[in-house]
């Protein structure tokens, strides 16, 4: 007889079906011996039944399209892009201004001096793996846009064989003139960006890693190009093979 070990917590556990078989039997024996406690527990059970009945069938709530996950994801993405675009005009303006002897140089150590710091910065602002893969855009919407801005320099790389499709084009401004970022994404939302900017004073060519991102860059004609990936992206080598021969 260890009925006396039954606690109030056990009684709640009994009502809520959260007891193991042994404790459950113990509580049953206890309640059989204590009509006052049995009445209390029965009251709790009735309250629980009423509550369940009053809230049954949540699927009967009127549909609300504003709560559709896909729609929320897209809205979230748009909002973030707008914010990133705004930030880009500020951040890139300052970083690149640093090249021209701008006083804020000290606050962005080194970034003004490093080649293609703007490409990495832009990738960081726009690549966004948090909200899942974005719907891809047909390439023929981005290509004419790019060509309009950069003429022959604005060829859109076809990265289909790496599973990457263009998802977004973003116009940017550098102190050397207009730049553009084209974002590619694969089916699980990993993003790679292709960046075009007017060639700076010197010809830049090579690769460097900064903060977990790898930028591979080259110059051709009047423009410099970069492709930015995560530093551990297995496609990086293949990308440079695909893109570098364009020179």
């Amino acid at each position: 007889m260890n009925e006396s070990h039954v606690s109030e917590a056990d009684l709640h556990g009994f009502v809520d079906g959260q007891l193991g078989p042994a404790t459950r039997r113990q509580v049953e024996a206890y309640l059989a011996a204590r009509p006052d406690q049995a009445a209390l527990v029965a009251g709790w059970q009735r309250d629980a039944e009423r509550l369940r009945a009053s809230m049954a069938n949540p699927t009967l709530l009127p549909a609300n399209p504003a709560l559709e996950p896909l729609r929320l994801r897209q809205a979230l993405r748009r909002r973030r892009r707008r914010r990133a675009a705004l930030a880009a005009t500020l951040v890139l303006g300052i970083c690149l201004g640093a090249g021209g002897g701008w006083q804020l140089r000290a606050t962005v150590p080194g970034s003004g001096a490093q080649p293609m710091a703007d490409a990495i910065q832009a990738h960081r602002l726009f690549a966004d793996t948090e909200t899942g893969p974005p719907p891809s855009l047909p390439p023929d919407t981005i290509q004419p846009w790019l060509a309009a801005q950069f003429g022959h320099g604005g060829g859109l790389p076809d990265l289909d064989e790496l599973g990457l499709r263009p998802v977004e084009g973003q116009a940017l401004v550098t102190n050397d003139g207009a730049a553009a970022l084209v974002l590619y994404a694969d089916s699980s939302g990993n993003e790679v960006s292709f960046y075009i900017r007017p060639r700076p004073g010197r010809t830049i060519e090579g690769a460097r890693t900064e903060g977990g991102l790898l930028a591979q860059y080259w110059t051709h004609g009047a423009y410099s190009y970069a492709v930015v990936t995560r530093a551990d992206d297995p496609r990086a080598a293949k990308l440079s093979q695909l893109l570098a021969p364009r020179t």
Partner: protein
Amino acid sequence: MPDIDDAELRQLLPRLRRFALSLTRDPASADDLVQASLERALSRWDTRRADGDMRAWLFGILYRQFIDGKRRSRRFLRLLGWLAGEPEPAAASTEDLVLARAALGALGELPDEQRALLVLIVVEGASYREAAEILGVPIGTVMSRLSRARQFLRSTVDGEAGLPRLRVVR
């Protein structure tokens, strides 16, 4: 994969809305709360533990949003009252409150944190541990709240047994 996640989300949606409704007691603000919570969840999708329970994660976000929102609106109301030199305006119209009370019964008179707990355990069938996780309190607090909530419901329902406070639909 996000597509699968979305399907899971869609499936949980009615229950999230129900939980939100039990908190806000007003359908329009319940859906606003769900929307804000989903936006928050989607924007921190990668902070979710892969092995974690999606329901507990989402319900936890929703509950915190609700509590934060309450705090904000209390501050706001205080500020309004202070600016206007008037007592705090009522949060919802009397009619809305009466309707919600009728639907929720005595539950609507419980303090928010006790109401949330009862709904999680009784309606959602959450374990005490899950409820503790969702509400962000120790399990001991869950047990003491549960005890107070049940005591309150008993006293209200039994004390006014003759009143049509609860409409039990059979």
